[in-house]
């Protein structure tokens, strides 16, 4: 949280339980004399209950904002399209935003963030304004997309999905989220002791990107082998529309190599690659 020096700067973070398990992933902003936190909708009840419990006894108020909506507009033309339908003041604000920075304009909060690996903005605004903005964007040619498209975009961008790629049974160190954790100083964040113990013992599993260049699609729970030994499984998989082959994330034993995936009783070779797979619509991963 100390990385949030600048108001409006977005920090991607994990919320941990006492044993270092991931309760949710989220984005937090410094906001006036407080913080704005954007969590996953599917974990809303759990997150609110947890945060209420953890803040009790401290001079801290938690305010849920159910009257707000969030719209994500992403893609190479996103900034231009949004700028064309909002006020000149907001268009100017968007033009000045740097990646991962958000800013206020009246009741709207506009940030250069996204879950797609593309340029774009996420706008948090009153629900009534959201309907008008949606309709104006659609009228200007911006296409609504569903969760299927969202899933292939975020996976191409190498981004985790809570519930698939991590949950309370794993730590951020096993979920390609080590960069979200800082051990500097002696902040007593929940889960610290367990994470430090895990580092001391040696982290045994890691979340990695895999590509399948053979004919097939990687899907969640397909086992991953190194030789005859199962070393893990796929956590998220898809047929990448950009790359036209299978991509996936898998949690495997640290250092495992010569990997194969078992699909319908056949073992096919998979290659481990550095994430992301795609950025701005183009392949960026390289085969070692």
């Amino acid at each position, binding site marked *: 949280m100390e990385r949030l020096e600048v108001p409006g700067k977005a920090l991607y973070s994990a919320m941990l339980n006492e044993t270092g398990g991931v309760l949710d992933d989220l984005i937090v902003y410094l906001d006036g004399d407080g913080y704005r936190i954007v969590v996953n909708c599917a974990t809303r009840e759990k997150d609110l209950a947890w945060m209420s419990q953890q803040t009790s006894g401290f001079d801290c108020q938690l305010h849920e904002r159910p009257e707000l909506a969030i719209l994500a507009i992403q893609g190479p033309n996103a900034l231009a399209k949004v700028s064309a339908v909002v006020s000149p003041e907001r268009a100017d604000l968007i033009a000045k935003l740097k990646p991962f920075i958000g800013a206020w304009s009246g009741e709207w909060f506009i940030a250069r963030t996204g879950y797609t690996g593309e340029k774009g903005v996420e706008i948090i605004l009153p629900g009534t304004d959201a309907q008008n903005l949606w309709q104006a964007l659609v009228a200007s040619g911006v296409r609504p997309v569903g969760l*299927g498209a969202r899933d*292939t975009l975020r996976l191409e961008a190498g981004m985790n999905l809570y519930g698939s790629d991590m949950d309370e049974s794993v730590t951020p160190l096993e979920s390609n989220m080590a960069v979200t954790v800082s051990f500097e100083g002696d902040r007593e964040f929940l889960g610290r002791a367990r994470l430090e113990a895990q580092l001391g013992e040696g982290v045994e599993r890691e979340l990695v990107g895999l590509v399948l260049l053979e*004919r*097939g*699609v990687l*899907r969640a729970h397909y086992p991953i082998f190194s030789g005859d030994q199962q070393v893990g499984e796929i956590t998220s998989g*898809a*047929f990448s529309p950009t790359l036209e082959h299978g991509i996936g994330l898998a949690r495997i034993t640290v250092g495992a190599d010569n990997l194969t995936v078992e*699909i*319908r009783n056949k073992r096919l070779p998979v290659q481990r690659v550095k994430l992301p797979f795609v950025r701005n619509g183009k392949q960026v991963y390289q085969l070692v």
Partner: protein
Amino acid sequence: MVEFSGDLHYAKSHEWVRIEDDGSVTVGISDHAQEALGDVVFVELPELQMVIAAGDEAGVVESVKAASDIYAPISGTVIAVNELLDDAPETVNTSPYIDGWFFKLQPDNLGDVQNLMDVNAYETFCENEEH
């Protein structure tokens, strides 16, 4: 609008059968099936000369959403497979009844086709499946 082709016979697992002039049969999957599957990205076809019984697995259709088995609608021997689907699997979506055929069988008994549904029975079957 899902299309049902009048001159074909249909299995409950959504394969269709067309009787050819030479007594062989051509097998594919219906428009209803390809729509439910979504974009097809790979097709695994049976081996030539494979002998299969009605209900045996005869291949796999891998779509973006899921992988689905294809079943032999009647017993017979595989005499041809549609190699077009290796390079253009999306043909299953765009032309399920014509260019998107999967394989041809020399049936053990052509009369077995009568065990399958005609187009009206299949259309009713699909409607009931949805409810």
